[in-house]
């Protein structure tokens, strides 16, 4: 789950990382009041979960309350990279001397957290040459102690014992404490702004591990899903809207992707991606099918390979939905694995649904029916 910048900055404050003075608002009037209180030029930053916010026009510089009100008005009516702007962060404008880059990420290859730092921060970190990027894998049993933080500061070409170096060292250790405390997949500060002897996190990008949210009740929920996707997520299903004509439901992310690939290969397009999970039961199947049918696709392809999932349970659920929704949308089912014969019998006898053993023939048939 990604957090908005202002939420990330609140967490930074909690962990002792300095951020520019500022407040959030959702009306131009309050934007002006905040600018008045801050005094001087301010940054007006759209709170959206898009990476390229600066380039997308989501950040404005304003001189005083009047200009702030105008900029806020415009921003609140705009979208940034497709995201509507509903909230603004108004901040003091910093007099930045140098911009650094600093992040911690969970790296699947080394199976460790990796600290990434560069003396070349700012907007285009992707374009910083490889040799200017520091990558420090972290041993979780050791953590990120002060001596390691000091050495990272040294490698950033800043004297660790200088006032600025000391402040930076503290930011590095604090960022790791935050990273572990909130079960983050990513914490990123870009830019990390050096203003004289003081260091500010001028931006905050945080992704919290979804599987860990149960132990972080204090972290607010942020959703970046469409309505259908939110519905699915509440049910524990993984759903993405697409723009084709064949509704798809399968169990397991890999086989769902392969099902979409197959539909495309045979010349049609999937209307959605719906993975009801490797351990899908009757309830998940029923809810999943309702989601798929709600889009009124030209045909539906259900592809189930039973492992934990039992094919007869899935078949029961399909028959139930079929009774409820009628037969106007043709449906093709592929069943294999645990209890597949029982499942096939239920579908064929009770609902007259075509059942296939092979994924390929089922996909071909669905494309035929949709065409």
């Amino acid at each position, binding site marked *: 789950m990604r957090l908005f910048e202002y939420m990330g900055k609140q967490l930074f404050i909690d962990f002792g990382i300095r951020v520019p003075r500022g407040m959030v608002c959702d009306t131009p009037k309050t934007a002006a009041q905040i600018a008045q209180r801050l005094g001087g030029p301010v940054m007006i930053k759209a709170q959206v979960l898009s990476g390229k916010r600066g380039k997308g026009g989501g950040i404005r510089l304003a001189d005083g309350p009047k200009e702030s009100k105008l900029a806020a008005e415009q921003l609140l009516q705009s979208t940034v990279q497709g995201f509507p702007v509903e909230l603004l962060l108004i901040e003091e404008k910093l007099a930045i001397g140098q911009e650094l880059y600093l*992040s911690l990420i*969970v790296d699947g290859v080394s199976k460790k957290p990796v600290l990434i730092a560069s003396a070349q921060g700012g907007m285009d970190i992707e374009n910083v040459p490889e040799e200017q990027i520091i990558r420090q894998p972290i041993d*979780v049993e050791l953590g990120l102690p002060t001596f390691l933080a000091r050495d990272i500061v040294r490698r950033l070409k800043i004297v660790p014992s200088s006032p600025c170096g000391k402040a930076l060292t503290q930011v590095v250790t604090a960022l790791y404490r935050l990273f572990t405390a909130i079960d983050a997949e990513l914490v990123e500060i870009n830019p990390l702004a050096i203003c004289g002897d003081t260091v500010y996190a001028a931006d905050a990008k945080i*992704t919290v591990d979804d599987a860990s949210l149960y132990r972080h009740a204090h972290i607010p929920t942020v959703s970046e899903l469409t309505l259908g996707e939110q519905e699915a997520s509440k049910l524990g299903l993984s759903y993405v809207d697409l723009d084709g004509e064949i509704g798809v439901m399968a169990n*397991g*992310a890999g086989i769902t992707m*392969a099902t979409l690939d197959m539909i495309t290969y045979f010349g049609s397009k999937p209307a959605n991606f719906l993975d009801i999970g*490797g351990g899908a039961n009757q309830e998940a199947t029923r809810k999943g099918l309702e989601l798929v049918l709600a889009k009124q696709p030209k045909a539906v392809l259900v592809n189930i390979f039973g*492992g934990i999932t039992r094919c007869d349970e899935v078949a029961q659920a399909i028959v139930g939905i079929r009774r409820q929704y009628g037969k106007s949308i043709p449906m093709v089912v592929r069943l*294999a694995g645990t209890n597949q014969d029982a499942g096939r019998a239920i579908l064929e006898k009770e609902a007259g649904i075509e059942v296939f053993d092979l994924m390929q023939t089922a996909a071909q048939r669905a494309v035929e029916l949709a065409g």
Partner: protein
Amino acid sequence: MSILIDEQTSVLVQGITGNQGRFHTQQMLAYGTNVVAGVTPGRCGMEVEGVPVFDTVRAATEEYSIDASVLFTPAAAVKDAALEAMEAGIRTLVIITEHVPVHDCLEIMAYADRIGATIIGPNTYGIVSPGRCKIGIAPSSIFLPGSVGVVARSGTLSYEIVGNLTASGVGQSTVVGIGGDRVVGQSFIDILRLFEADSATSVVVLIGEIGGSAEEEAAPYITQMTKPVVAYIAGQSAPPGKRMGHAGAIIERGRGTYHHKRRALEEAGVRVAELPSQVTGIVQTELSMLHADPFYGLIWSFSRPQQ
């Protein structure tokens, strides 16, 4: 021979009294797996399918010699259960559970690396050496003993491809699910190395998917392998996955897409199937080329068929 497990492997089931633990203990026993004990805190003295249940792993290892443990423990308890098994001396762990917090995985993997334990998963269906031993939740009926090694990230996609192989009479030496999460115990390379060294394996099937860089990481190793590798990668037409901010882009440097993975594997000499159903045919071709080779089985390092 097979890799990681065989008919001798004695298995502990952690979380044996839950629904999944119970059902799959029965399935594993029916397959012939040597399940010797189970653990669920507070359930000492019970039996599940005739298997004695203990409160702690140490209580089980005091009575039985245990080679491997399979975990059906709830996600929030996986870290403790995995560390408990390793601390008690078990060196092969299969973690079936999905949605394990990623920082818990980092700690599990760090400890495993330090003491030299092998972790399969989390979020995996486990390992099967057809006809010998099954640890995990894969449906027993789809496997056939043979000489094809299979390694995959995705569960149901493995079932799909292994099921096709079996239907055509092409058997498997060992089938390994490394797990679908960002942090898992074994990489493709770790498993490929084992297959390369396994005398019972002659062809390897690698089943990948978009996202991450596990397939790209494997490519340089594959160029050094003497055994042919056939691959399928899911997600050619799937919607783009979540990006992990700038840091994700830096870690992966443009890797992770279908085309990037496919190119990396093909450049390493891997034959990549367009559809899951094409894997069997390609494997059969590779097998017949191996058998037609007069040096087959004699000088491995010179007998790699040319495509």
